[in-house]
């Protein structure tokens, strides 16, 4: 029977190479941004709804209106219809126009849906 006298030696020698592997990601080009100041209360505030026209957002916003009005009777709302679809082929244009539109409508806070 043939016996490889180098077998034990071979088994103890790594054949796995030696590599210095580089980071495969890339730095973020990102400025950390602060959130807007929060509101003291929703009472008498003007709340805008933004919608991506999916996943029953129209029904959800109707329910939100109902619930918020019960807690804050003088809260006001601006419908999603005022802003256009936030997730369509015109998304960039719609989003670019948002700050000015919110200002024109006197908005205090925004509820945006639906991520589903």
């Amino acid at each position, binding site marked *: 029977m043939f016996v490889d006298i180098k077998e034990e030696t071979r088994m103890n020698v790594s054949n*796995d190479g030696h*590599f210095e592997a580089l*980071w495969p990601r890339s730095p973020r080009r990102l400025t950390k941004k602060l*959130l807007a100041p929060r509101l003291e209360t929703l009472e008498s505030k003007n709340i805008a709804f933004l919608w991506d026209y999916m996943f029953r957002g129209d029904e959800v916003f109707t329910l939100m209106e109902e619930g918020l009005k019960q*807690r804050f009777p003088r809260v006001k709302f601006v419908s999603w219809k005022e802003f256009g679809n936030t997730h369509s082929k015109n998304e960039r244009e719609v989003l670019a126009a948002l700050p000015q539109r*919110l200002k024109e409508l006197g908005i205090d*806070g925004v509820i945006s849906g639906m991520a*589903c």
Partner: protein
Amino acid sequence: MLRASAVCEEAGYPTSSLVCEGFLGQAAATTIGLGMKLPLAKVPGHTQAQSADELRRNVLEVTLEQAVGNLTVEMAAAGEEREPGARDVVCVGGMDEVNQVFIDKEWSDGLPIIPPTRQKVEAFLRFTDRSPDESLGTILPDSRVATVWSIAVNGVMAGCRPEYMPVLVALVEAMCDPQYGVEHSGNTPGADTLVILNGPIIKRLGFNYTQGVMRDGFQPNTSVGRFWRLYLRNVAGFLLHKNDKATFGNTWRVVLAENEDVLSEIGWEPNSVEMGFEAGDDTVTIARYTGGNALASAAGSTPEELLPYIADAVVRQISWQLMFTVGMASGTLRPLVLLSPILAQTIAKAGWSKQDVKQYFFEHARIPAGQFERILRDWTGKPVWSLAEAVGDGSLPKLFAESEDPNRMVPILRRAEDYMIAVTGDPLRTNAYVFAHNGMLGYPVGKRIESHQR
């Protein structure tokens, strides 16, 4: 949706983003790339699977309270995340050790990678005239810089050869094109990108463009396809269970190259010309497809005999994707039909051009109007609308509402030219393939592959 919230916050308006329960992880990961920790309000379960009573209870008992808190309670700022530098060595060791680290750090797709060493990366960089630090864009959702260096690193990992580098650079240029919409690459239908290659580079680099064209087995087709997915993972930031919310998903697509010999023989323009380039240019075209199906054994010796079967197959591949014909992204549906060379030759022999075939599909790949409306309005819960209303407000051509008959046949696309046709595959088999396109969430984009001058 979160991008809209980020715009509002930046403009000084506090927001609450409504997020279904299963998407809270993705939303949290996405907000990092937007530069702020957006406040989220949970919607329990998924709205599409709830009765009106269940939805009401969930919104009023859970979502509402969280939304009020989001708008009125100051949140702690997001912490700083320390990361390596662009050219840092992150792991030293043998093949197994490096691969284990890359898997543990989520830098690998699960298959062994080629360790990206400086020597190998520099070999790739010799095949481009661009600076390693040049940025081709910033890619969402992670907002990372798409540098030439990072292209080389991921090309090495994917098992590409250095001479593929010009193709990889063109692909990332396409990825960064806003028209493509890379930021949608983690959406739930889980579409995957197909790369179509054109030009003399097909033969120069040895891409398969004949039998079994979309099967792994040819190094350039397979490794360049893998590169795409690795780049989406490592630089765009699409990771499963985080930013990639594919419900099912599948492996990356092997690169498809057209058979330009046959196209030249029959006088049909290659895909590259349809994408706006000159015949003979080396180009890549990318688009995302949710799926597709092979159509076997088309029988006939004339276009009139062959095309009804293929048109029928086109209709069968398009369902909810109609939302890209009318609705959120009207006019962005671009189905792709692959014809084997013998089918294209048979059709062309009768004097038909590619455009004639597209026109045929436009006129014959049609469905009843009632079915069209039912798929979107009733079955997938899109907002209430009708084809007649869309024609009425000018958002659809009159062709979609020529009568009130719900059985009238309407096209599935807005224009004949929205069809894409490529000729490839087994030269002597009468098979076709139809891809279901993902509309604006991966719109076709083409880029010229720069020749390397140095």
